[in-house]
């Protein structure tokens, strides 16, 4: 067993393919599938962020009722770069709440003359120096996007809400999950047999190239070879092999498979944490979990 899973035999490598404000795409090489999946799971469910967890409604004359509003507030992503400086609410020693585990915000708005949109811009921290605040999205051009709409108030309607933001994980509620989605795909592997060049005529080659819905292939006009253009786009639909099958060619001209231990990760952040932060935090959590596990197994070994 140690041959396959043991330490030292493999040295996983990360190769960052792309990094943006909200997404990161990287290749995890030489890594067993279980580790890759653990990483994915941790990113979804175990990386803590901040989100509104408790709402005091002093006044609400909007069309949405209290629970509706609270639910909407809860799902707003909060900038959580400083999340490590806070305690989990349940682990904090304070009684109702304290500055170590919670941040207070308020939302006090009245529509005075016309319909008023209440957005995340209207959520104010009680402590203005607070670094935890609702996410402001910036689009590809670097401009700020419209804030998230919470509720529309008609004339003379009013909301007066106090929110308490707490630290939590996606395991408890999806609002604490730092990612919108984590894509993991095994690195596709396409083996084109050298004999393909001769076996197919040009028309068939073009057909093969066009058969792929994800346009993975490209025809090299000079050499009359079918090249692989964007291997990462392949999603194992097997349209190309089906195409060849229909041509009644030899079976082993083209083989579409996957690289067993190469994984392409695409992490889309909700904006609460920078994507690279999510990944590195996930690793830290993974290591913590592993060491906890090994500690436990050692303890039980010692008992025996």
């Amino acid at each position: 067993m140690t041959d396959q899973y043991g330490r030292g035999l493999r040295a996983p490598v990360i190769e960052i393919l792309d990094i943006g404000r909200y997404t990161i795409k990287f290749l995890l090489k030489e890594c067993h599938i279980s580790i890759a999946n653990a990483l994915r799971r941790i990113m979804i469910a175990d990386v803590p962020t901040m989100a509104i967890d408790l709402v005091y409604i002093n006044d609400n004359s909007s069309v949405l009722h209290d629970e509706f509003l609270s639910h909407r507030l809860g799902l707003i992503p909060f900038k959580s770069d400083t999340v490590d400086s806070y305690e989990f609410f349940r682990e904090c020693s304070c009684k109702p709440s304290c500055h170590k585990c919670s941040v207070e915000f308020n939302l006090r708005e009245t529509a005075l003359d016309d319909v008023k949109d209440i957005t995340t811009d209207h959520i104010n921290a009680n402590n203005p120096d607070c670094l935890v605040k609702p996410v402001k999205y910036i689009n590809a051009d670097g401009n700020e996007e419209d804030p998230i709409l919470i509720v529309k108030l008609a004339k003379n309607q009013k909301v007066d809400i106090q929110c308490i933001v707490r630290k939590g994980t996606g395991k408890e509620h999806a609002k604490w999950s730092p990612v919108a989605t984590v894509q993991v795909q095994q690195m596709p592997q396409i083996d084109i047999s050298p004999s393909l060049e001769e076996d197919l005529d040009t028309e068939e080659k073009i057909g093969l190239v066009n058969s792929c819905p994800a346009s993975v292939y490209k025809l090299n006009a000079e050499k009359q070879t079918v090249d692989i253009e964007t291997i990462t786009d392949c999603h194992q639909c097997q349209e190309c092999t089906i195409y060849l099958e229909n041509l009644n060619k030899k079976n082993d001209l083209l083989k579409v498979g996957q690289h067993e231990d190469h994984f392409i990760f695409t992490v889309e952040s909700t904006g609460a944490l920078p994507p690279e932060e999510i990944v590195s935090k996930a690793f830290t959590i993974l290591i913590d979990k592993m060491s906890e596990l090994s500690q436990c197994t050692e303890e039980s070994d010692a008992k025996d």
Partner: protein
Amino acid sequence: MKHVEDKWKLLPEFLKIRGLVKQHIDSFNYFINQEAQEIVKANSEIRSNQDENFFLKFEKINIDMPSIEEDYVINKIMPHECRLRDLTYSAPITVDISYTRGRNIIKKNGIKIGQMPIMLGSSNCWLNNKSEKELAKIGECPYDPRGYFIIRGVEKVILIQEQMSKNRIIVELDDKQNFVALVNSSTHLVKSRAEVICKNEKFSMKQNIFTEEIPICIIFKAMGIESDQEIAQFIGTQPKFLEEMSLSLLESSKKDVLTQEQALNYIGARIKSKINRSGPNAIVKSKRDEAFDILKDVILPHIEVSNNSLLQKCRFIALMIRRIIEAKEDPSKIDDKDYYGNKRLELAGQLVSLLFEDTFKRFQSDIQKQVNKSLPNKKNREPFDASTCFNHDFISSALENAISTGNWSLKRFKMERAGVTQVLGRLSFICALGMMTRINSQFEKTRKVSGPRSLQPSQWGVLCPSDTPEGESCGLVKNLALTTHVTTDQPVKYLVDLCFNLGMEDANLLVGTELYDENTFLIFINGVPMGVHRNPQKFIRDFRFLRRKGKINEFVSIYFQQSKPGSKLQSTIQIACDGGRLVRPLIIVQNRIPLITQIDIDEVSMGIRTFNDCIREGKIEYIDVNEENNTLIALSEKDISLNTTHLEIDPLTILGCVAGLIPYPHHNQSPRNTYQCAMGKQAIGSIGYNQMNRVDTLLLLLVYNQKPMVKTKTIEMINYEKLPAGQNASVAIMSYSGYDIEDAIVLNKASVDRGFGRAIYIRRHESNMKRYADRSFDISSKPPAEIEGKSKEELPWNLQRFHNLDQDGMAKIGSKLTKGDIWLNKYSPVESDDRLLTNKPHSSVEYNPSPESYKGGAPSYVDRIQISSNPEKHFLVKMIARQTRRPELGDKFSSRHGQKGVVGIIVPQEDMPFSENGWCPDLIMNPHGFPSRMTVGKMIELMAGKAGVLEGEQKYGTAFAGDKVEDMGKLLVKHGYSYFGKDYLTSGITGEPLNCYVFCGPVYYQRLKHMVQDKMHARARGPMTSLTRQPTEGRSRGGGQRLGEMERDCLIGYGAASLLNERLMISSDVCDVNVCDKCGFFGYKNFCNFCKDKSNVYSVKMPYACKLLLQELTCMNIRPKIKLKDS
């Protein structure tokens, strides 16, 4: 041929003027604007037998707009106010009268005689012609179907009632296989049923008023046809008719009835004696006159009698006999009772009119009684004024009660019907809409005949083939199809004149031989023979031409009833203009070209022209079920052949509005569509734009509704997208975890966290602050001062239940109510008899607490408290409590294909399978749901939905049309997905790829009203019933689970005696009794009262129910004796 595209665009325009609920509204309008007037005209005068000169005449009736009189002020009233305040949406009925007072004739206009409940959306409703903004102001939803009544705050629908058609001859076999021709006649005055029956080769007439069957020739003779030859001529002179009649003719001469006088006396002697209307002025009629009056008024009353000549009736009876003779010869001539052309639908207007007529007559007889009482009283100085004895409440309460209870009991017609009205179901928009199109059949549910339940070919296009309940009322309760319209009564007079102008020869001028000649064709108007014509095709062509030109009402139908080619039977022409027929619009085709052109459709959809314009121009006409037999209707333009007369507007119109929600229904197994029709009504969604202002007892709303990704044309037409009931769930069709067996579904926890299937549950709690006879009243008062500023936990236990009360004694808005919390701190005055007498001041009134507490299981939040009043309850408090329910294990969900399932497990997102592009299902459905159900439509919905998502538009799954699977597959490929809609998924638990491709995509899912929270129940110990001391029954009473007879049998068979003993006695109603071994009676306190001895008394354990039984037997003088044995 040029192809007309988008014929269906006519449908929304059609629905604007007809269809769905319009028939209710039309029929009610007809009643208010015409029939009410006729009823009053028919019963206009009241006379008194005390004074010949007295009269009271109702000249005119007028039904106003809805209003209410409160504190002597008349205010107009809006429907929403009625709902909130438990009022009736009704309008005053006023009449213009003239009557005699003393020697003067007095005219009075606008005297109120009562209140008429008004149908929402009818001509007398305030909601007419109101813009959306105006409707919003008065709290009304613009998409509300209307067509219902509001009685004491409750929305009531008068269901459409299906009946056999009136005034038509129906030939059938009775229980003893005799041929019977029966006619249900109905006029404003009388309803009667006459039968001509053929028994032992002899014809006779059966009527309820006769004690026995009267030979038919005697009837003829009594009606004035004395000679046998004449009778025979009436029926027909062909040998077969004469042969059949011979015995009947013989019979009358055998009975020695030869003249009209003899016949009348014969009949007179066989009339059921009515309760003698004794009175000083009662006119005693002779038997002969009585018989004549019955022939005139009771037998076939729908046929006109002019100058005391019963000739027309004779002709009709002869026709009945002919029909029997024809049927004897050719059994296919027996009428099919289930044929839809023989049915008529009774709508709200007709039912209310029956009720109003009856009530109005009783109202008049009430006045008459008072007049009779008061007139002879000449002592009064003032002459008697009849207008003072109008009782407003009489008509109002009679109408209100009938509509609110649904009991239509009209003594005059011996009509006793229950369940005519139903409370409008406001579970979802579709539920309410579906109720408006529902047809209730008068047929008995218990009888085991399949005929009335099965789908009749003649129901094509007018009734929905899918929408019917399962179980006992299957096939008896039906729903209208999308374009069906129900006619209202039309005047006959002008039709008759028109027929004469078209060359009809009057039947009165002809004898039987001429009437029934092979080359003449009888013309019937509403089932009554009116005349003959020699060139029927021309007549019909001319008639239809006039109808298409708008000279005849568009709903009048004419059809040629052709006899079988070989037979010598006569073909007839039937014209119908009576109410309750089902009609539907069809495009007219002439010379293989549909008259509707692309220009018409463009103009109609642009709003330049209306649907009615197309009818006026003779391009579309309404065809009823009977006339359909003379048509050849093409489904689509390519089907048009040489003989085609009409073209369907769109095949989707054969479905109703509820079945119209199903995408690709033509790909499903038909029962699945029926199941969805039942479930679509239980889906939680939006009810109306005013849903948050309503005060229904129970309201279920979905938090985040979505329009379906795959819609249908029907969905667009009925505004389902404005008030949807469901969400587009990302579905993966695969097996997962084993918690998905038996149709259970797997939910994604993250989706649930983010609001999938989240519902609002709103319940109304009511309390009435009463006012008592002694002028004291209930009060609500502030809670104990100690609760101020303290949370519930900080309060002592006895004050906890007051914790959310405000200073007015009512719960604070937004506060949490848990079981037992008081929401209204009400006090009732202590009853005292002397207060009235002694006139003590109110300050001395003593009060007892009678608080209203919250009884629901799960906690709720106070949403609103409404204080209102109405004439009956003058201080009405309604508390609206609200819960938010997220889906949990056991909650019921369903797609739109009759595929229901409960939540089996809720799985964290990280455990869910995911695709390479990060997609993760909201819901996993087990593929075992497909093979046996054959709901291919659901798979196509998934593909179309997926293609739609990728394209960024909604796709169509319209019945018999819709986007094609092939195109959907191509779209999927275009966006880089598999043609077959399958995706490559990875297990979320192991990270390994799944071994197969999984069919994934969005499917519209509905959350159904059945929720675990309302049903879960368990009990260890709990309340017992007082009589038997056994555990109570049912969840609401905290009852136990019954170990029933069959379960008991199992245990007996198994031999588990001790378990049985424990279950049935010890854990139930064990009871210690003293039994005297000597006499066998029960003892008491170790003493036998019978033996007066305590030496033989032993304590025995037995079920209390057993002890009770023995004692009850003893009470009945049966002596049960208990013998004891050592165990």
